[in-house]
């Protein structure tokens, strides 16, 4: 297991490398000339050249990339001009909030997706199945940013059960209960689409597994139907659902951009949107890199779990 883990860990190095290449290339696509942008239209050619040299723009693109990568590896993501502080500090601070939100959503969508999928498969064509299928259909077609607004209207404005926005109450806030009450709506909103996708796939996987010969063997052994479904069928279905949960982590991390904007959650998604409107590209670059890297790591985790469950994958 440890050997496999190390091997897999080594395999993500080229992926992370590729991520930096793509981010670098996107940033290099910037239209116009940065020196002119900094100095204004009336800059002298000497000054433009000086700025270009300062920014390293007189070098070739690969050279620029490796200098940039070297800086990244030393934790130097540049300085955010709009916030006037190092990008890495801001990003890590914001990422913390995103991790809480995305983590809570992932737990919600995994638990509810699996449960709904299993129940739906077990009661196939019954009322429970129809109700689940109906909600799955609605869930995966729902614009999450709109759903967030609806939930705010119902639970924050009309019922006044939960706060409409933010991460902590401004006055006398703090503490886990306060966090939880602020977390509830955004986490649920963010989880809805992923729950639908996971439920759909779990249902299909369960139905597929329940037709297998080894399920007949389990029944022929005289096991209770409960044990057949929750031990034999569920474990086999889970193996094929786990990679999907890994992929959903990407949609949850990405969807956090909308949800954090709707609920004014002080996470990295909202930071990105603000950074784009202030054209603070270094901040955008840092945020994208950190979130993408965390997604890669999460997929590694999903892969490891799958390997632990399925002995056939051990090589």
């Amino acid at each position, binding site marked *: 297991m440890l050997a496999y883990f190390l091997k897999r860990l080594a395999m993500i190095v080229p992926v992370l490398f590729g991520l930096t290449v793509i981010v670098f290339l996107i940033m290099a696509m910037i239209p116009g000339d940065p020196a002119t942008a900094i100095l204004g239209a009336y800059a002298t050619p000497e000054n433009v050249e000086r700025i270009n040299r300062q920014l390293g723009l007189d070098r070739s693109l690969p050279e620029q990339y490796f200098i940039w990568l070297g800086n990244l590896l030393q934790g130097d993501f540049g300085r955010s001009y709009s916030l006037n502080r190092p990008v890495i500090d801001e990003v890590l601070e914001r990422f913390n909030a995103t991790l809480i939100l995305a983590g809570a959503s992932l737990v919600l969508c995994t638990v509810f997706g699996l449960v709904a999928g299993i129940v739906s498969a077990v009661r196939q064509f019954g009322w429970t199945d129809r109700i689940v299928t109906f909600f799955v259909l609605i869930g995966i077609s729902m*614009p999450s*940013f709109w759903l967030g607004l609806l939930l*705010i209207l119902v639970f924050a404005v009309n019922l006044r059960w939960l706060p409409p926005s933010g991460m902590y109450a401004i006055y006398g806030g703090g503490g886990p209960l306060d966090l939880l009450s602020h977390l509830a709506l955004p986490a649920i909103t963010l989880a809805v689409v992923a729950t639908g996708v996971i439920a759909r796939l779990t249902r299909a996987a369960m139905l597929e597994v329940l037709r297998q010969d080894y399920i007949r*063997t389990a029944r022929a052994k005289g096991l209770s139907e409960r044990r057949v479904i929750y031990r034999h069928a569920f474990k086999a279905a889970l193996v094929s659902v786990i990679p999907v949960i890994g992929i959903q982590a990407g949609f949850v991390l990405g969807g956090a951009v909308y949800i954090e904007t709707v609920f004014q959650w002080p996470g990295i998604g909202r930071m990105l949107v603000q950074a784009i*409107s202030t054209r603070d590209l270094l901040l955008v670059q840092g945020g994208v890199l950190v979130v*993408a890297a965390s997604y890669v790591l999460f997929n590694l985790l999903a892969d490891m779990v799958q390997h632990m469950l399925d002995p*056939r994958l051990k090589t």
Partner: protein
Amino acid sequence: MSTATDTAKPVEPIRKSGRPSFFALLVANRLAAFGLGLLVVIALAALLTPWLPLQPPDITNPANRLLRPLAEGHFLGTDQLGRDLLSRLMWGARVSIAVGLSATLVAAVVGSAIGLVAGYAGGRTDNFMMRGIDMLMAFPYILLALAIVAVLGPGLMNALYAIAVVNIPFFARNIRGVALSLAHREFVDAARLSGKGHLRVLLTEVLPNVLPVIVITMSTTVGWMILETAGLSFLGLGAQPPQADLGSMLGEGRKLLFTAPHVSIVPGLMIFALVMSINLVGDGIRDVLDPRLKSGALSRPAAATAVKREDVPAMPETPAKAALDVRDLRTEFRVGGDVYKAVGGVSFQLKERECLGLVGESGSGKSVTAMSLLGLVPTPPGRIAGGRVLYQGRDLLEASEADLRKLRGGAFAYVFQDPLSTLHPLFTVGDQVTEAIRAHQPLSYRDAWKRAVALLKMVRIPNAAERAGSYPHELSGGMRQRVSIAMALANDAEILIADEPTTALDVTVQAQILKLMDALQDDKGSALLFITHDFGVVSEICDRVAVMYAGRIVETGPTDEVLNAPAHPYTRKLIDCVPVLGEPERRLDAISGLPPAVNRLPEGCAFAERCPYAEAACREGEIALESLAPERAVRCIKPLKPEQSEAAQ
């Protein structure tokens, strides 16, 4: 579905004479039809917007700001600048649909081109291009789009490009897979050899064949793309005022959420309806074009076979002196409108300590007979339609699920064919045997595990203690089958049912397993119902034999009598199929023809079509299983005489 085909083949159900059209299938799916209807309405409204009697969408009227829906002159009310919401909604929907479709087209063209080239070229080009695509997919979906918009600057066109780029991988991957499989097919090679350039081969030979995949991918991604472009506009990164799409309307309306919620709810509802209708149609298209992927098309087998007996034989007054007494068992499969009578009235008795062989070709109903005994035939589509299964004076077909569960693996134990698929791949073999023990004996896990190891030793698995910790895929076929047998022996079953236990194994292992089963059966004193298609195996192990054909027993008797003097022509043919060592000149002819489909059994003898001795009388009326001698019976109006059957050898 024309009348011409109906008259040509009156017997065939209409459904089979012509495949319904693509469109008919799509509409038959109620959800897809609903989605299609909704989509058509929205699309028509969006197309016709310029000609509809709507107020201009951009005329502000501060006097009428934030009117509620159903206000006079403004069906959906007005926004913060007094603009008519209904009009803005229609114009916004036009923009959103146009942008979503354009993004889909861009992604489809670029992604398909990458996929086609990568799949067609293969090798290093493929590797290089697909690694690049994998890199794009390593980003969380919307995040990459944000980075692109960040660089290009906010705006509807830039949002369109960004969303197109992040969807390219879906097309590239799907199309590459198909192109790869086509790249070396004969017609592509032929085109290349005829001197066409690579580009022409790609465009004229490969592209037309991947078009359906492109269409499916488009139909499943276009909803997403509309949603995501709306999302970017919602964040203020897409459409910029005064231009408005559904997303930017929602984004602007959000600021008024507390005072005038309708301004944001209305455009959101439109996005939702649009995306849902597209998803429904997309699912429908996928189900029609690729029925295998249809979500939930597979039905879940119930815990026990449904029993709906049309005729139930009377309970015998004095119970037979047999371990198991099966009377006129009937099992059917109902698929669509057809009824497949897999078991059409089977009766036999399994005596204590004997081994009864149930022999026949695949499809003769022997396995279904065995599965029916304890309700292991999957329902749907299977169901037991008649008969009794008597065990200790009880009819098992009347037993509750709980009672069946006690008997399964308890008094009755099964050994199945192909132990690779019948053992659970994710549990160790020791665990699976332990579980079988604990299902019927109140032992702790540790004690049961010890007993499991002892069982594995008994079926002669070397290093049983160590092997118990192995997973099925780590064992050889023979070892796996020994595990299945150990599992069947776990609770000292009275009746062992072995369904082709040696078929998946090679010959030497087969012999070992047979010897093992024979020895264990003698040792434990259980009765054995042995199902096989191989008379060679029967002669090794069975005391008596029952030959099945098309769901019925056609001959039964002691093994050596049947082997030496088969009375049914089918039995003789089946015996002829067994190769004998040292007799190479022996004809190994398979029986010509096919068994009849059990949903359309002919009248009279089901074997008549393939029987060399068949005559007119064979195709009339019901032919009974006639007794020839004590213990001997045959379902044939002119059974073979001993000299006839010997002449055959």
